[in-house]
């Protein structure tokens, strides 16, 4: 089928360790953790105290700015520990599961009869709301606004990311029901699928369908919004991951919060990269044990994909949003004369100063080495090469660093999220931290513009 959006820019990083489309099994853990930091900008106010019993789906904290947004427990059992950091900021909320999954039940009327307001309060009370995020700013959606549309990316292009159609294979009905629910919250629901998609996603009803052709970051929902209906100053759009659309559909059918999460455990040092049926907040250790890690030295465990995910550790837990768990070897070693051009081509490079471009089919076992040191911005044009948007990335980043709000608006800060700049991080010759710069700039905009 033909594509209605074709993106030429971008970069697919040929990384080893893609998940084969099979499920591995693991011994379910009984320790679960919720990280409030997963919800950027939310200041948590605890409802449940340490040592108290909780049921699955029971609210454990709410957002200080929007008390109606409830965050719920992924298991039934006991809240064992609240880990605090500097200024008593809550870092982790730990649970011990009793394995019974006693769930908080909500009364749900049939979807056809449900008004938009009722649906909204159900989602807020049930803990489903935080799955809906908003652009601009890439934060949990503000329930008091009406977005110009809800955007869902039905495919991923990030390195080794979980395959959407495969994950949703057995949840097609839930996904369709979730879409029906979302159509009540916004004038339009947009679903983007890959141009060559033949899965059930192509026949989903009630959405405006877009067929997108392109390499990473074509699968990023922000890039898709930019080409479908770009966000102007003062407008908002909501975004939600496809698996979480199905989750909302399931909640409306059963009345209980479903914490299940299909995770792809991937990476060059993973022995059997594959999918696992897990749960939000589950400890990563048993998952890693199930697929096997084969590394000589230390490893980096990443909640999410290797470009935009966040670092966790062997004793850590899955995050709230990610359905990919990536494992890389730490690159904390020296390479003699590693900067010489045309040698060391076993490290992939977008630049043709390495010979890796002569081997387009090769896959690489990349590690976390910076491959150089941070430098002043010298090389031009490389950022533009990996950002398929009508945005001047270098100029925008410079205005972000200068915190020039008017210029940031003019150059399109409302249209970007940190993940859209992940490839800029990757490709930068000067090793700049573009995602961090964009995140800080968005926080400045939240504070100054709101």
């Amino acid at each position, binding site marked *: 089928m033909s594509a209605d959006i074709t993106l030429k820019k971008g970069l697919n990083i040929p990384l080893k360790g893609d998940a084969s489309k099979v499920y591995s099994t693991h011994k379910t853990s009984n320790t679960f953790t919720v990280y409030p930091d997963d919800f950027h900008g939310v200041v948590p106010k605890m409802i449940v105290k340490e040592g108290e019993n909780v049921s699955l789906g029971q609210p454990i904290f709410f957002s200080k700015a929007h008390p109606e947004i409830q965050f719920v427990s992924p298991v039934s059992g006991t809240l064992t520990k609240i880990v605090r950091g500097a200024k008593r900021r809550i870092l982790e909320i730990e649970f011990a599961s009793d394995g019974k999954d006693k769930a908080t039940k909500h009364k749900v009327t049939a979807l056809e009869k449900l008004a938009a307001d009722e649906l909204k309060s159900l989602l807020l009370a049930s803990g489903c709301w935080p799955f809906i995020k908003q652009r601009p700013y890439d934060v949990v959606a503000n329930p008091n606004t009406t977005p110009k549309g809800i955007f869902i990316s039905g495919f991923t292009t990030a390195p080794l990311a979980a395959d959407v159609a495969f994950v949703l294979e057995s949840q097609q009905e839930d996904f369709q029901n979730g879409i029906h629910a979302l159509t009540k919250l916004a004038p339009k629901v947009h679903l983007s699928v890959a141009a060559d998609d033949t899965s059930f996603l192509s026949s989903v009803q009630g959405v405006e369908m877009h067929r997108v052709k392109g390499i990473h970051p074509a699968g990023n929902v922000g890039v898709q919004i930019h080409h479908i209906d770009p966000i102007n100053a003062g407008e908002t759009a909501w975004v939600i991951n496809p698996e979480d659309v199905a989750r909302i559909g399931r909640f409306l059918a059963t009345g209980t919060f479903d914490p299940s999460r299909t995770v792809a455990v991937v990476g060059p040092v993973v022995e059997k990269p594959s999918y696992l049926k897990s749960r939000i907040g589950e400890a990563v250790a048993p998952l890693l044990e199930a697929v096997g890690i084969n590394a000589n030295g230390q490893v980096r465990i990443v909640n999410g994909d290797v470009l935009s995910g966040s670092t966790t550790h062997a004793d850590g837990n899955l995050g709230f949003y990610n359905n990919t768990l990536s494992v890389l070897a730490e690159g904390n070693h020296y390479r003699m004369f590693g900067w010489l051009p045309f040698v060391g081509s076993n490290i992939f490079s977008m630049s043709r100063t390495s010979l890796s471009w002569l081997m387009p089919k090769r896959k690489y076992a990349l590690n976390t080495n910076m491959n150089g040191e941070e430098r002043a911005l010298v090389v031009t044009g490389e950022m533009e090469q990996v950002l398929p948007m009508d945005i001047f990335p270098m100029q925008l980043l410079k205005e972000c660093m200068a915190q020039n709000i008017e210029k940031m608006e003019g150059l399109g800060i409302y249209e970007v999220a940190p993940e859209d700049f992940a490839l800029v*991080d990757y490709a930068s010759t000067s090793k700049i931290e573009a995602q961090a710069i964009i995140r800080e700039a968005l926080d400045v905009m939240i504070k100054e513009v709101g």
Partner: protein
Amino acid sequence: MKLRERLDAIKKPFGKGQKFERFAPAVNAFDTFLFVPNHTTHKGAHIRDGVDLKRTMVTVIIALLPAFIYGVYNTGYQYFIQSGIAFTFWDALLHGALKIMPMVAVSYGVGLAIEFAFAVYRGHEVNEGYLVTGLLVPMIMPVDIPLWMVGLSVAFAVLIAKEAFGGTGMNILNPALTARAFAFFAYPTYMSGNKVWVSEASNVDGISGETILGSLAAGNDVSYSMFDMFVGAIPGSIAETSTLWVLVGAAILILTGVGSWRIMVGGVLGAAATAFLFNLWGANALMSFNWMNHLIVGGFAFGVVFMATDPVSAAQTTKGKWIYGVLVGIFCILIRVFNPAYPEGVMLAILLMNVFAPTIDHYVVEGNIKRRKKRLNASLTPAS
């Protein structure tokens, strides 16, 4: 890894909180030359591209080498041919090397000393940009320029054109060209005329080393064939004469993506079109000088390939690079044709466009901002 352990031991007093911490950038510059450091990603993307600034800059140096080596040879060749002494290839190369290597040493010595001092003073790592500048400066000087002038020009360029603006990545003007412009205006007798372009020309009477553009500006005929001009067996600044070897460098820069092909193509198009128009007019010797010859004499090819493409001082937007390149070409020919006092136009053309590059970019970026404003206004007025 014995060497690594020894290095770590040497670096210990320069570590965080140690006695010589502030001199760490100077030591790191040598260490990172031997080893890509063991730094890992700590925020942002967890994997990074294999490229870094060192690799990029060294690629530029590789691209410069063919023209450099030919320049060394041509220095000896011009000397022996003009003085009528029999010679071999190695004689020519040796003569050139004895003249040029001291210039390279002075250029790197003075420039890197200033760069290291500023890195320590400002507390940042030493940037690799000077590795290229330091080689470029001798390549674009006349061969007989005194070494102290090379040193002084380099010091002026690094201090005034680069560090005064905030260092690497912040400069408006190309540092190497600034060094040449400084020498050109401060010591014109060493930088122009007909006695400076061939080795020993001012000492030996038999040698007249006029450049082709110089002869044309003086209204004289040119005795070189087009083939000589293309290969580069003509008098001129050390490494600018050979279009052939400059093109080899251009191929390396374009193939690796390190140099902007848009600027190079733009420059050639701009110069060719302008020179062609002047051919039709033909009011003086330089105007009627065949447009194809304009592209292969003087420093045009060298300037457009290696100097105009400096990413820091050139335009930075894609559209801006085209405009900038074309204008460099146009102004180069304009200066050559209309200003006989400066027969070589490319240096001034590039410096002029360096100054205008931010303005070009400004209008390109402003176009993007205007598009976005227009879209916003369209969304605010509902379609009726």
